[in-house]
Structure formats: structure tokens, C-alpha cells
């Protein structure tokens, strides 16, 4: 048995010993231990070094509020920094090490900083490191960065998996201490759907370290009975190891559940789970955090909070040391003193800053044989890596100084209490307001904004009887608020209540020298090494808003977010400003209550599930053919199909020539498709497209451009009239959903009088686009009953026919400039169609082509791509497509904007074709165009290259560009300065191939 472990008592399982390593040394603990309790049991108090001065630091608390005892856990993929030893449940084989110490926590080179501590005051870095200017980046900052932060960063991928769960309930109870359990039971009895979450491994909260009884049985037994009662209700969900960590609008709360961390690493399954709860009512029963007293050298290992010392001895059977001193300004530490003395610690004295100790608690302590020294304070501490002794001196009546005889008491631990701070974090996150309770010397909930109630210690009710009562009341009120009938009121559990004497707020305990003088330091925020002197300095310099103070000194900004230090810092500021605490203000707490792993927040949205990969019905074929894919929005589209190690350009040249000279096929299934039905369908199209639709014949297709109200091109596509009142619109792949949303918006909100229904059929159809001079031949074989002659089936028309035995719609439209048929069958026949086409196409040399070839072919024809030739600042006129803008329609979306002064300018950036003087040179897309050949920046630019390709068909490069006054620059020479060289280009019309359209009409 470890040296400081009592042979009995506590909630650990002595039959289950566990071995672990800390800083390379082997130790033993028990099941039920935290890393902190196990270390203390082995007499290890020195666990880390502080942030700035590298002072030795020990374990201060027994919970989530721990500022000091941060450790790194495990190695490799399981490595995790910044864990609080007080919350790490011990498992067999655990390996942990100290942070911020080199070469070791015992001998830390960084401690040299302590010698310069007089320079490293709050905000010192704002006042120096400015000269010479270049040294900031080269010298100063790298040193600061390396010095900052204690923990290493992980360097390997995380092998664990994470989960998320939505939950809904009538009542969410945050915290399963006395108040929470009572609230939960009342809610459960009324038949409510209840979730009870508690951050600890066991329910019970403060009761787990309590020695008194409830209802005549030990508190821990009472907790177990309550837990069992709750578990019996089918609508109650009990979640231990689950921290309610975020409270958002509309009573939406976030909980982080640790599922396997306590079992060890590499356990498989879900490691941590994020709960997203929508609660009708919330009962906050999150308890309170004890805060330290701010006295000289109050950070020495061995100095811990009294409540923590009590928890270690009662809950874990661990003595914080052999000989202790208790230092307090309130009664709660007396209970700690009594319990510590009872379990084998020698308590030399209770030092109480209050002038008298005549209350019931003091009497109880005296009865237990404890010595009380009133009106005194710890004025100094001996020992660096472990407290060795404290110096006790009488306090002046105003508490500003110590004087008189100094008494030295040897001890190896000090249990301190500066009072309790209700854990109002969740309330504050919810938007609730606080008020300062002078009598209790703490902030308590004042105004609720959301559907929540605070009960127990987090409500400032710091005694058990009151917490039980408030909890029960909150539970009953919650169920009433959700419309349920509370169960018949039952008697409250009986507990012994000792009336507490009032707390005496003493925010700075004076030392032998004035604060900030001499070597001793009064720490406020131990983690960030912020002292009382720092706070006074910040205030002196004008950083007087609480937020300025926090940011300037970094107090409360550490991984503990100031749970034990914020109130002390605020009070010291208020004291320095001589203005009361409420008028100095409070800080707002931001989520999360305790840190949450990114893995948990991402859940299963990682790896292949990080986003949807949409695929067409023919996707498997493309994969089998070795296609390289392009991401277009969420879609995976074949980009090109390399053969035998072809490069992109080689493959695309081959594919292009195959389409121009033979026949190619493209999977066009991804285009958006909207089925439009209703008597006003044509009128609707007239309003949303720039061109006219009323006269389009049934079975005929028309290209349309859609603008936004600002006149800029939004989308384009071909729409076909399937019947008098029936159209099928196609949209670009990326815009399909946005177009449908916009159309619905117009129909529902602007033109509800129009009788039109829209239905998305994007996914219903699989589309194989067959293009090339041999397309007719191939389609003819597949659809022998269809008359494919130009007269019977002209360009821009649609036929229904049987293709390869499948009922299909065939659109004779073309984006390549070739004779082209787009064959559509329902998605579930897409692959069958595709394979049948290939079976027939083999003899025709059918070549599959991807989006890159499609882009080249359409560019040769000067067809635009929305999002490539346009960027939200381009009108149809800018594209040279005046012909598509109706001058007869009185109105359509975007029309009015065309006549705005800037939009109506004739020298706007306009779409042109560019031919490089050297036909072998392919302009990079995105190249800027200038009028001058001299490419020395800065220089004015005319515009940029939107599309640029090698055209195998033409045996030269081609490009399109948007350039200022492009329409008037035809046949002039412009330049593309590329840095390494400047390419001269001739401005031409943006059509490079078959400008008469003989081929697609052929």
C-alpha cells in the first residue's frame, strides 16, 4: 500500500490495484482513483511547472477546476496534452508525464525565468521586442512561441472514433449531486422524459466526499439508492462521465460523454460522444468551486483547497500529507480539518482570518481537539517543491497588514479555503444574469433568460439541506412548466445541519512585504502565473474593464478558464479601484464548460464521411475504366479517362479527336433537372429567363440564361417543352439546388397567383450524351425504330423512343458543337443503358470522355460555363449574348438592373476570344491581360483569361477572356504578363470552330 493511502475508507476498490507510470516512474493505484489521487497516495505532489516562471506546482483541486495539475497522457496516436490529473480516471498501464518542464519536472531549466520575474510582469511583451524591427519575426517571437504553452502537440493521426447523438427531453438535469438527484427524481415521478448528466464517473457530486448521513444512511448509500430509483423509470436516461458543456439558444445544450477513456487506450468502439440535447426545461445543479486565498507563495506544492483535501481523504482514502495546516475565511474548511484529523493527518492548526471562531462549526472542531488561531493569516511559505512550513502572523483589524509575532509551523500540506464560487457557467452561457451576493461573497444567478432553473450550490445554496430542498422544488417546477402534474410531495431527506458562521471576504492576504515587493508572489491565476501585483499593475495602467484586465494580464484565460481565479481577480481589481465588485462587473462565461476534443466535435464527419460524395448510376463503370475524377460541388465526375499512362493532355487530346472525328460519350447525369407543370408554366419561364418561351413548340428545346435581380448571370441550361403546360428545365450541376430554391421562392412569395408546380427530377434520370459525326449511326443502331433524320428529329428537339430496349427520352442538343444525342433513362436503368451503348459502340470506336474534354470542345465553340466565364459580375451582354435578352418582354428577373449607370456602360469587361501569337503556347487560366507588353508591376489590367486549352482539333491553343471594352478590341493585340514571360495574343471572336454550326445541325 502506498505511503499516503489509508487502509480503509473511500470509494476505491483496494482489491483492484492498477499500475501506472508518471514521468517514467512506476506507481500503484486502485480502481476508482484519479491520476491525481493515485499520485497523492504515492506522495507525489510536484506534478508540473508553471507557464511563465516555471515554478513547481502541485495538485490544487479534485475536479474540473484544476489549474495546475496538467499532464500529457500516452504516446503515439493516443497522445493527448493538457489533461487535468484530477479528472483522469486511473486505468492499468496508464502513462503520463508533466508538461512545461525540461529536462524534468524536478530540475527544470526554465525555472531560470524566475530570476527575471520582475521583468516578466503583466503585458511586458507589449512594451518591448520592438527594435530592431526585423528582430520580432527572426528572434523575439520564435523564443516567445517556443516558451509559451506547456504541452506538446499530437503528431500522429487519432486512431479513435467519435460519435454524436441527438436527444430530446422534458427535463435535463445538469449535475447529479444532491440538488440534481432530487430534481431528477421529482421530474421522473411526474412521468417526464429526463436526462441526468454528470461529469464524474459516479453520481453524487459533493456527496461522494461527504461523511455525514442522509435519511439515516451514509450519503454514498443514499446516492446509490437515488440512482437505482431513477434507473427504474423507463423515461429516464442516466449519463455519468458526461459533462454538460455548452448551453445555446432555444434550450439547446451540448454534452460530452467519455465512453472508454477510463478503460485505457485502444479499446475500440466509440471513445467519446457528443450529445446534442433539446430540452424543454433545464435544471442546473452544477455545484460550486472552492477558491483559494491569495497569500504569499500560495502556489507551493502541498497547498491545496480544503474541499479537495477532504475529497481526497474521504473519497479516495488518500492523505494529502502527514502534517497540515488549514487556512480559511469560512466554515467549510473546518469540516475538512475534522475529517483530515479523523483519518490520520495531524492538523497543526486552523488559521482563520476571522477575528473570532465562536460558531457551531468552530465548536465542533474544538470538540474534535483541533486548535483554532483566529484573526491570523499565513504570511509566508517555506519550501519550493513542497511546502515545508508556514509562517503565521496576526492580521490587522482592517485586514490590510500582518504584524506582531510570526509563528512558524512545520507542515507538509496546507488546506485552504477562500469561500465558494457557484458554478454559474452554464447559466451565463444561456444568457442568464448574475448578481453579487455580499453576504456569501460570490456571484449567484439572478435573471433567467432561457427555460432553466438553478438549484443547490450553483445557486449559492451552499448547505446540503438547502440543496436537497431546492433540487426537489426545481424538479417539480420543471415538470409543471412542461405541462405535467408533479407527484405528490414527499418529505425531504433528513440531514444534520450545522449553522454556518458568515464568511469574511479577504481578497488579498497581506504578506510580510507589500504585494509586488520582495520575492514572494501572491498568485491569483496559478496556471497563467498571474499575481495580485499584475492585476494591480494592469489597473494602474488603465486596463480597468474586466475584459481589459483579463486580456492584459491573461488571468482566467488558461485551460481552466479561471474557475478558481476569476472571482479573486475581479475582487482585487475592485479593491484596487475602490469600487464595489458589482460595479466592476463580471465576465461572461463562454462554452465549453470544460474543453471538448475536436474529434468529438467532428464526430463521424471525418475521412470518407467528411462530406457526401454524390455519384451517378454509372459511377462504377467510370471507376473500373480508371477515370480520374473531378469534384464538382459534392459530385464526383469523370475528369478524363487516361489510357496506358497517358497524361491529362494526351488523354484529352485523344478524347477530343474521338468526338470530333468519330463518336464519344459523356455521363451527363449530374445536370440539374426540374419538372415544371401547370397552365402558367410558360409565363413562369418568361419571368425567370431573359428570353421568351411562350412560342416554343412541344417537343422543342431552347437554351436559356437566368439572371439574378442585379442583372448578373446566375445559371444557364436547356429547357424542353414536353407538353402545352409541361416543361423540363436543366440547370448546371453545381447550381441545381440553388436554382430550384430560387424558383420556389418566386413562385411561393412573389407570384403565388401563377399555377405552376416544380418537382426536382435530377436524380430520376441518368443521362448518356453521345456526340460526334458518328453519333447518328450509333444511336440508330440502339434505337432502330427512331427516325433520326434531320427533318424528323432536328437539332434542339426531343423524342421519346426505345433505346436498347429501354424507354428513353432523347434530346438532340449539343454542348460540344457536334451532332449529339442525350439519352435519358430512369436512374435504375442508367448502367444498363450505358453498358448497352458500349456494347453497340465498340465497332464505332466509341470513346468515353470526361469533363475536361467537354470543356475543350465547348470552348472551341465559344460556349460559356457559368462560374468559369462568369463570377457574379457578368451580364449576358458582357458575354456578347445580347440575342438572348428579350427586348419585348416588359419584365423578367434582372432586367431593371441592366439600365443602371454602371451596368449599362459599353466599356465593361466583355467576353472575347484570344489567340496567342505563338500557337504552341497555352495561356494559363487566370492569367491577367494588359494593353502594354511591358509587364513591370504595378500596371493596369484589362481583365483575365477565363478558359484556355490546347485544341487538338485546331492544332493550337485557344482561350477566352473577359477584358475591358473587349467588343471594341477585336483584332488588336493584348498581352498576358506571366512573370517569367509575356505572351502576346490577338483578340478574336470567342468562336474557334465551326462558327456556322454546320456540325451540330448536320
Amino acid at each position, binding site marked *: 500500500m502506498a505511503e499516503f493511502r489509508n487502509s480503509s475508507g473511500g470509494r476505491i476498490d483496494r482489491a483492484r490495484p492498477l499500475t501506472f507510470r508518471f514521468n517514467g516512474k512506476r506507481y500503484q493505484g486502485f480502481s476508482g482513483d484519479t491520476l491525481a489521487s493515485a499520485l497523492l497516495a504515492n506522495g507525489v505532489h510536484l506534478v508540473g511547472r508553471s507557464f511563465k516562471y516555471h515554478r513547481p506546482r502541485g495538485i490544487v483541486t479534485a475536479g474540473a477546476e484544476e489549474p495546475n495539475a496538467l499532464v500529457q497522457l500516452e504516446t503515439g496516436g493516443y497522445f493527448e496534452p493538457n489533461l487535468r490529473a484530477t479528472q483522469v480516471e486511473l486505468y492499468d498501464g496508464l502513462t503520463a508525464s508533466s508538461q512545461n518542464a525540461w529536462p524534468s519536472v524536478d530540475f527544470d531549466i526554465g525555472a531560470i525565468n524566475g530570476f527575471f520575474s520582475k521583468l516578466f510582469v503583466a503585458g511586458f511583451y507589449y512594451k518591448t521586442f520592438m527594435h530592431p524591427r526585423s528582430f520580432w519575426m527572426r528572434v523575439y517571437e520564435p523564443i516567445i512561441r517556443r516558451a509559451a504553452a506547456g504541452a506538446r502537440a499530437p*503528431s500522429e493521426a487519432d486512431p479513435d472514433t467519435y460519435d454524436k447523438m441527438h436527444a430530446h427531453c422534458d427535463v435535463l438535469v445538469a449535475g447529479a449531486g444532491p440538488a440534481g438527484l432530487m430534481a431528477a427524481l421529482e421530474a421522473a415521478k411526474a412521468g417526464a422524459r429526463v436526462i441526468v448528466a454528470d461529469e464524474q464517473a459516479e453520481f453524487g457530486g459533493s456527496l461522494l466526499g461527504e461523511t455525514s448521513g442522509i435519511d439515516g444512511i451514509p450519503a454514498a448509500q443514499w446516492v446509490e439508492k437515488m440512482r437505482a430509483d431513477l434507473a427504474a423509470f423507463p423515461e429516464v436516461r442516466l449519463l455519468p462521465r458526461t459533462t454538460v458543456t455548452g448551453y445555446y439558444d432555444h434550450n439547446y445544450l451540448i454534452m460530452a460523454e467519455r465512453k472508454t477513456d477510463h478503460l485505457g487506450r485502444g479499446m475500440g468502439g466509440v471513445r467519446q460522444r457528443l450529445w446534442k440535447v433539446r430540452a424543454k426545461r433545464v435544471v442546473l445543479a452544477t455545484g460550486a468551486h472552492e477558491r483559494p486565498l491569495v497569500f504569499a507563495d500560495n502556489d507551493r506544492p502541498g497547498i491545496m483547497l480544503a474541499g479537495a483535501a477532504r475529497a481526497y481523504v474521504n473519497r479516495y482514502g488518500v492523505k494529502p500529507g502527514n502534517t497540515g495546516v488549514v487556512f480559511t475565511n469560512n466554515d467549510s474548511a473546518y469540516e475538512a480539518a475534522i475529517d483530515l484529523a479523523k483519518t490520520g493527518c495531524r492538523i497543526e492548526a486552523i488559521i482563520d482570518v476571522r477575528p473570532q471562531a465562536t460558531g457551531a462549526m468552530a465548536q465542533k472542531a474544538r470538540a474534535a481537539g483541533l486548535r483554532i488561531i483566529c484573526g491570523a493569516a499565513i504570511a509566508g511559505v517555506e519550501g519550493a517543491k513542497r511546502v515545508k512550513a508556514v509562517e503565521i502572523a496576526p492580521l490587522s483589524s482592517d485586514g490590510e497588514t500582518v504584524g506582531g509575532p510570526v509563528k512558524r509551523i512545520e507542515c507538509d500540506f496546507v488546506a485552504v479555503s477562500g469561500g465558494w464560487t457557484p458554478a454559474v457557467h452554464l447559466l451565463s452561457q444561456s444568457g442568464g444574469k448574475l448578481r453579487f451576493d455580499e453576504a456569501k461573497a460570490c456571484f449567484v444567478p439572478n435573471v433567467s433568460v432561457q427555460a432553466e432553473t438553478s438549484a443547490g450550490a450553483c445557486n449559492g445554496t451552499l448547505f446540503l439541506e438547502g440543496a436537497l430542498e431546492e433540487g426537489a422544488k426545481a424538479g417539480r417546477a420543471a415538470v409543471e412548466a412542461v405541462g405535467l402534474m408533479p407527484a405528490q410531495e414527499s418529505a425531504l431527506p433528513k440531514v444534520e445541519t450545522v449553522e454556518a458562521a458568515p464568511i469574511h471576504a479577504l481578497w488579498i492576504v497581506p504578506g510580510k512585504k507589500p504585494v509586488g515587493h520582495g520575492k514572494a508572489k501572491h498568485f491569483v491565476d496559478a496556471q497563467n502565473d498571474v499575481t495580485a501585483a499584475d492585476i494591480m499593475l494592469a489597473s494602474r495602467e488603465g486596463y480597468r474593464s474586466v475584459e481589459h484586465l483579463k486580456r492584459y494580464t491573461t488571468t482566467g484565460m488558461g485551460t481552466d478558464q479561471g474557475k478558481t481565479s476569476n472571482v479573486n481577480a475581479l475582487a482585487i481589481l475592485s479593491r484596487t479601484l475602490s469600487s464595489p465588485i458589482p460595479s466592476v462587473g463580471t465576465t461572461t462565461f*463562454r462554452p465549453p464548460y470544460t474543453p471538448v476534443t475536436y474529434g468529438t466535435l467532428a464526430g463521424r464527419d471525418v475521412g470518407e464521411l467528411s462530406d457526401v460524395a454524390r455519384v451517378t448510376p454509372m459511377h462504377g463503370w467510370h471507376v473500373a475504366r480508371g477515370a480520374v475524377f473531378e469534384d464538382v460541388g459534392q459530385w464526383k465526375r469523370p475528369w478524363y479517362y487516361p489510357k496506358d499512362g497517358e497524361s491529362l493532355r494526351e488523354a484529352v487530346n485523344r478524347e477530343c479527336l474521338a468526338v470530333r472525328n468519330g463518336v464519344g460519350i459523356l455521363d451527363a447525369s449530374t445536370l440539374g433537372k426540374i419538372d415544371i407543370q401547370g397552365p402558367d408554366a410558360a409565363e413562369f419561364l418568361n419571368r425567370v429567363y431573359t428570353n421568351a418561351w411562350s412560342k416554343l413548340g412541344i417537343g422543342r428545346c431552347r437554351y436559356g440564361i437566368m439572371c439574378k435581380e442585379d442583372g448578373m448571370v446566375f445559371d444557364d441550361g436547356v429547357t424542353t417543352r414536353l407538353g402545352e403546360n409541361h416543361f423540363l428545365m436543366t440547370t448546371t450541376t453545381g447550381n441545381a439546388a440553388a436554382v430550384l430554391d430560387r424558383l420556389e421562392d418566386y413562385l411561393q412569395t412573389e407570384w403565388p397567383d401563377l399555377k405552376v408546380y416544380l418537382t426536382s427530377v435530377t436524380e430520376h434520370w441518368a443521362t448518356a450524351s453521345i456526340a460526334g459525326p458518328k453519333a447518328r449511326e450509333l444511336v440508330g443502331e440502339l434505337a432502330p425504330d427512331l427516325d433520326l433524320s434531320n427533318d424528323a428529329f432536328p437539332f434542339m428537339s426531343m423524342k421519346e423512343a426505345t433505346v436498347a430496349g429501354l424507354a428513353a427520352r432523347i434530346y438532340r442538343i449539343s454542348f460540344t458543337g457536334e451532332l449529339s444525342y442525350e439519352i435519358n433513362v430512369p436512374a435504375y436503368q442508367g448502367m444498363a443503358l450505358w453498358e448497352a451503348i458500349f456494347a453497340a459502340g465498340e465497332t464505332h470506336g466509341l470513346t468515353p470522355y470526361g469533363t475536361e474534354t467537354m470543356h475543350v470542345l465547348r470552348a472551341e465553340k465559344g460556349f460559356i460555363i457559368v462560374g468559369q466565364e462568369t463570377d457574379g459580375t457578368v451580364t449576358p451582354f458582357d458575354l456578347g449574348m445580347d440575342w438572348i435578352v428579350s427586348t419585348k418582354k416588359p419584365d423578367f428577373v434582372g432586367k431593371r438592373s441592366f439600365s443602371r449607370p454602371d451596368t449599362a456602360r459599353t466599356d465593361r469587361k466583355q467576353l472575347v476570344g484570344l489567340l496567342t501569337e505563338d500557337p504552341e503556347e497555352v495561356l494559363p487560366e*487566370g492569367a491577367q491581360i494588359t494593353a502594354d507588353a511591358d509587364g513591370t508591376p504595378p500596371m493596369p489590367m484589362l481583365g483575365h483569361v477565363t478558359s484556355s486549352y490546347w485544341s487538338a482539333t485546331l492544332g493550337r491553343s485557344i482561350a477566352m477572356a473577359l477584358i475591358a471594352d473587349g467588343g471594341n478590341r477585336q483584332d488588336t493585340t493584348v498581352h498576358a504578363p506571366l512573370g517569367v514571360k509575356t505572351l502576346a495574343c490577338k483578340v478574336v471572336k470567342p468562336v474557334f470552330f465551326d462558327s456556322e454550326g454546320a456540325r451540330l445541325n448536320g
Partner: protein
Amino acid sequence: MGSYSVFALVKNAFSHHAGWERAWRDAAPKAEYDVVIIGAGGHGLATAYYLAKEHGITNVAVIEKGWLGGGNTGRNTTIIRSNYLWDESAALYEKSLQLYEGLSQDLNYNIMFSQRGVLNLAHNLSDVREAQRRTNALRLNGIDSEWLDAEGVREFCPILDISRTARYPVLGGTLQRRGGTARHDAVAWGLARAASARGVDIIQNCEVTGIRRAGGKVVGVETAKGFIGAKKVGIVTAGHSSVLAQMAGFRLPIESHPLQALVSEPVKPVIDCVVMSNAVHVYVSQSDKGELVIGAGIDTFTGYGQRGSFHMIEHQMGALLELFPVFSRLRMLRQWGGIVDVCPDASPIISKTPVDNLFINCGWGTGGFKATPGSGFVFAHTIATGEPHPLNAPFALDRFTTGHLIDEHGAAAVAH
């Protein structure tokens, strides 16, 4: 005002740091000022500073509802860059970047401007095209920018996952080496200190409740501390611009949205640059304290609550781990929100208003911090002379009528 330096620090150490002066004076409002600036954020303080420094106008008050630097200045992710697409934007942000480069020395306050480079990732062919366009435009505008292929990206930021099997593989990125981050609070504090030293009154905890006009001209502001007369008034109240405009009787083409950000627990240096990705929607850098500072896009709805919705955070974390799988076991320490003014074209408004002698500076969306000194510089010019500086002339309110927008949206799904 005592100068800040290492010598001053040593000297003060001997007197227990009792000798440090107030960083800025706590001023009581005078009856009238030549110029009243509403809003003591970075932009407002910079405006006051440059009014004093460049135009000799020192009878200036900066009036702040809360504490100075407490709005978006103290809530942003501190990224500074000038790699904007359009000439007008690039010129304005570049001016700002150049001012940042000498700001610590100019203010005698270390703002910790760290030019560690800003990397914008490209994940698809459209991103690549856009990145190339931007890089070329910046180069011809005389602004540093370079294109890195995927391997170049990996070399510059080794912990980025550039594997081709990623859902959205990294195809490359643009790098602005002069970009980086600065300590946001220090920018506000340094400007406040320097402005105060030049005679500017900074009045905190003084909410403006009305803008008094007479004959179409502004004459002063009603505040929580009474009426304060002013010959000229500048509104620089990011987030609340519409509210102030309404007090002056006009509307703006602006919506206020929540923008959220978060930091991790601190760790030793692991990422030595700023990485931004529009396609997967996240941006990240590491502060000098070691925290990873992470942001993403705005919440879709309007809101003045400085709070957003949690799903934004979830999405952002998925995106983060897509780029940096090694961050999975790090933890979110703190998240918060600000209120950003969003213009239809994602560009700011630095302009005269329908009210004479009343000027407005707003609409910076998610990207105001990087513009702080530049914005103050041109706004000071606009207020002092009554006419815009050539750099902010294109950013006038009338562009919404003429249609001459400066649309940075198309150029950046997430405009920062």
C-alpha cells in the same frame, strides 16, 4: 507619456512597476469637438490616431458604448493579408498591410505583427483557376502572392494532409508571405495609447443614443453622458452600423450576422502560418500563446447576439480534421461570437452619408481587422477633407445605385 522599451521595463522593475503611467487618459467629454468618432474599436481608434497624426486634428473624441476594443477588434481571428482580387480592394488592403508593417514602432507598442504567411488552399479545379487569377492580379498590382502546388503546400505547412485520398484533396494554394497575424487587443490598446498621447479623448462606457442634426447637417451626438457637440461625426460601429444609421435617418445595404470563432488549449508551436480553405470552410493559425485560433463562415441569419449556432462549430471541426487529422485529440477551449456587417458585395463602405458632415465606415464583413490602420487612414482623410481619399473613393455608398459593386463574393465563398 513614457516611452516603452526594455530599458523602461528594467528601470520600472526596480520601483516595483509603480511608475508606469496610464496607457490612455480617462477623459470626461467636452462640450464640443471638431470630430466625434463613434466606436472605439480598432478602426475608430485608428481614425482618431490618423486625424491627429496626419491632419493635425486633435480636438477629437472617440466615444465607446462599452470598453475599447471590445467589439470585433477583440473577437476576430487576427488574420492580416492583402491578397484581394479586385484592384480597388487590393489597393486598400495593401495600404493597410504596409501600415501594419511599421505599426509597432509607429505606436511604440508591440502589436506582435507576425508575417508568417497566409496560405489559401485550392481543393478543386475551380479553386485553382480562381487562385491563379488572383495571384496574377496581385502580382501585377505589385503585391506579393505566389502559387504553390500540392507539394509546395506540404513543404510550407508539413502537417497539412495533402493525400489524394482526402475527400477534397489539396491541389495547391496561394501564399502571401507578408500576410500573418497580430495581437488584436494590442492593436486597439496601442492605437488608443498613441491617439490619447496626441490629445484625443477616449470616452468609454458612453453609449450614443442619438445623432443630432440641424438643417441636414450633423451637430453632435446624444450620449449616456449627455449631448456632445461635434462639427463632424464619423460612425465606425461594426455590427451596429445600421442602428447608428437609423439614428441619423438613413438605411444601409447591410445585414448584421453572427460570426463565431474558437481556440484550442495551448500547445507548443505546431503550425507556423495561417491556413485558409474556402472549399472545406475553415481557417486556422496558432497564436503566440500556443492556442490554435480557428474560424469559419458566418451564421446565415441576422443577429446582434454575439452568439451563433452550434452546427457551425461542428462543421468547422469536420473541416479542420479533414485538413489536419493530427488535431483530433486537441480540445476546444473557448468559443465566442461577434457581429459582422455584411454588404451585398462583401466590400466595405467608407463614405459620406446623406447627412452633411456625417461619415460612415462599415460593412467590413468578416475581414475588418486586417484593414484596421488602412481603414483609419483613409477615413481620417475623408473626415478631415470632406472628400474620400483615392483609395476609398470606390467604396462609397452610391455604388449600390450605380451598380459599380466591388464583388469579392464570387472571389471568395468565405470572405475574410
